[in-house]
Each structure stands twice: as structure tokens, then as C-alpha cells.
């Protein structure tokens, strides 16, 4: 995690490199390091779940405990926020949670690449979530979905103003959802790199930033969990709005 031997800039870690250049009809679809780490995340999660569910022991082992904890954590969250109707969408929410969490945690490995520190990745996920949730809300409630933009009990003269504000507020969802995750991951990893650079530059005195980097790494673990948690809980809240648009 410390700065590389060549004195890389702290932002070097976010650079995307093409591993297998590919080009389909003029569109650059190269297999990049970002794609590689996404694949690694998916494989890691799948492997964890397969190993965990392979035996299905009554008294769970370590791996099975991890899987069960994650499962119960997400189920509880979904049930608390969306009620039992929300459990139908558990696979979607669970996938999002595990993917974000794994990508965040894998990013903490030295020499790895943090997929979630790229706005392109988080924005894509956020847009998929928002579009899916909006379509779901329209399919479930029809026109009633638009109650979301006009809370009941609002005086009529206030309605035009309020609807515009509510629409803007709705449109901020994908922005805040994606920016929060990406900004947190990027800021954390940049800070780590900067202080890692100090360790090398200061020589013997580098002990102080080294201690700081150790503490910061712990904090980054917290942030990795927390951001996955926030991303998921917001998905649940938006899902709840789609299922129950009446305020």
C-alpha cells in the first residue's frame, strides 16, 4: 500500500490499463484491470457462497457462518425497511451488497485495484438500481407512483413548486448514491497512498506516518463495510418508495 519504488503519484492506483485490448465495431471493449477485479469480486463471492452452502452443516463452520451472517444481515435490513413484500427482491439487494462489499474489501489488498473508486462503475450500478426501482414502482402502482412527487395534504397552490423540488430530489438519488461510494473509496485510498509516501520520504521519522497508515487502514476497513451498508440500505429505501409510494 506504500508508494511504489518509482515514486508513483497517489493517483496512479486509479489508472485503468488495458490487459487484453479488444475492439468491437469501433467501440473499445478492452478487458481492463477494472474488469479483471470485477471478475475477481464476482468469483470470490460465488466461491464463498458455494463453499458455504456445499455442506449445509447444522452447526455452521467459519465460512458458512460468514455466509449466514451476510444473508441474515441483508434479510433483516430488507425486512425492516420494505416489509415482507420486499423480500421478493432479496436476490437483487443481496447481490448488490456482496458485490460492493467484496469490491471494497478487495481494494484494500496491496497492489489491487479498487473497482468502486471509479465513478463509471458506481454510477452504472446506481443508474441500474434507480431505473429498475422506477420501472418497478410504475409497474406496481401505475399512476399512483407519482404520489411520491406530491405528498398528500399539500395545499394546491404549493403543488407546482413542490413537484419540481420533489422531482429534483428524486433525480439526486443516482447522483448521491454513486458519488458517495466512489468519493469515499477514492478519498480513502488516496490518503493511504499519500501517507504511505511520507513513510518512505521521512526515513527514520517515517515511523509516525507509518503508525497513522496502520490506523487509517483500520478505518478503511470500516469505510469499506459502511459504504457497502449505506449503498444497500439506500437501495432498500428506494425500493420501499417504489413499493409504497404513498407517504
Amino acid at each position: 500500500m506504500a508508494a511504489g519504488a518509482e515514486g508513483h503519484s497517489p493517483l496512479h492506483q486509479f489508472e485503468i490499463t488495458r490487459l487484453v485490448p479488444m475492439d468491437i465495431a469501433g467501440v473499445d471493449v478492452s478487458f481492463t484491470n477494472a474488469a479483471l477485479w470485477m471478475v475477481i469480486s464476482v468469483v470470490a463471492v460465488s466461491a464463498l457462497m458455494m463453499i458455504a452452502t456445499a455442506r449445509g452443516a447444522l452447526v455452521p463452520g467459519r465460512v458458512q457462518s460468514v455466509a449466514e451472517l451476510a444473508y441474515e444481515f441483508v434479510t433483516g435490513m430488507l425486512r425492516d425497511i420494505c416489509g415482507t413484500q420486499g423480500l421478493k427482491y432479496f436476490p437483487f439487494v443481496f447481490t448488490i451488497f456482496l458485490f460492493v462489499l467484496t469490491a471494497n474489501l478487495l481494494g484494500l489488498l496491496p497492489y489491487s485495484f479498487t473497482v468502486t473508486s471509479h465513478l463509471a462503475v458506481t454510477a452504472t450500478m446506481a443508474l441500474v438500481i434507480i431505473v429498475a426501482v422506477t420501472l418497478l414502482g410504475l409497474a406496481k402502482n401505475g399512476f399512483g407512483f407519482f404520489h411520491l412527487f406530491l405528498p398528500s395534504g399539500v395545499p394546491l397552490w404549493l403543488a407546482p413548486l413542490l413537484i419540481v423540488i420533489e422531482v429534483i430530489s428524486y433525480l439526486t438519488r443516482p447522483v448521491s448514491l454513486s458519488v458517495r461510494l466512489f468519493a469515499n473509496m477514492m478519498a480513502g485510498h488516496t490518503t493511504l497512498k499519500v501517507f504511505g509516501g511520507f513513510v518512505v520520504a521521512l526515513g527514520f521519522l517515517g515511523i509516525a506516518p507509518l503508525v497513522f497508515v496502520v490506523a487509517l487502514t483500520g478505518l478503511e476497513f470500516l469505510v469499506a463495510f459502511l459504504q457497502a451498508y449505506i449503498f444497500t440500505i439506500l437501495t432498500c429505501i428506494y425500493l420501499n418508495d417504489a413499493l409504497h409510494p404513498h407517504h
Partner: protein
Amino acid sequence: MADDPLPSLTDLDRRLKAARMAATGSPDGIPPEVPPAPSSENWGSAMRLGVELASGLVVGGLMGWGLDRWLGTKPWLMIVFFLLGAAAGMINVLRATRVQGGEPPGGAPKNGG
């Protein structure tokens, strides 16, 4: 482990059910109305707020800018929508603090406007 559970396990199951019933009032251990766990909730919502406020401004400003370009009303709509975006950001923050990551489905009013 065969299909018929061991007697010790049936006993354990019975005692678990009783304990859960006593603790939460429902046999599967799911409390009917759980207030969200406070500690991680607070952390989470605290870190949400800044981005909520800023994204309202950004979206409002961009919307106004786009409408201005489309309708040719150079600065005016952007100013108006920037202010509306600020209001939307405020509403987002109000909701984030008030709802605290979840409400009972169809439950308490949460309109911050």
C-alpha cells in the same frame, strides 16, 4: 445426521422458540416492529448528509443549465433551478436525518416539505 432430529435438538428448538417468544413476541425471533439498531445507523446517516446536500445543488444546477440551453433563456432558469436544487438537497437531508434508514412500510409520514 438423519432426517429425524435428535431429541436434544427438538428440546433445543423448543427452548429457542420459547426464548424468542419471550424476547420478541413472535416465534421466529423476528420482532414485529424493530427500531433500527442505533450505532451503525447513526454513522451511516452522518456520512450520507454532505453528499445529499451537494447532489441537490449539482442536479438542480445541471437541470437549469440544460433547460437554459434548450429554451435560450440564458442565466434565469439556471438560477431558479439552482435554488430549487438547494431546496431539494435540504429536503434530502431532512429526510435522511428523520427517516434514519427506514420506516415501517406505509407508516409514519416522512414528507419533509
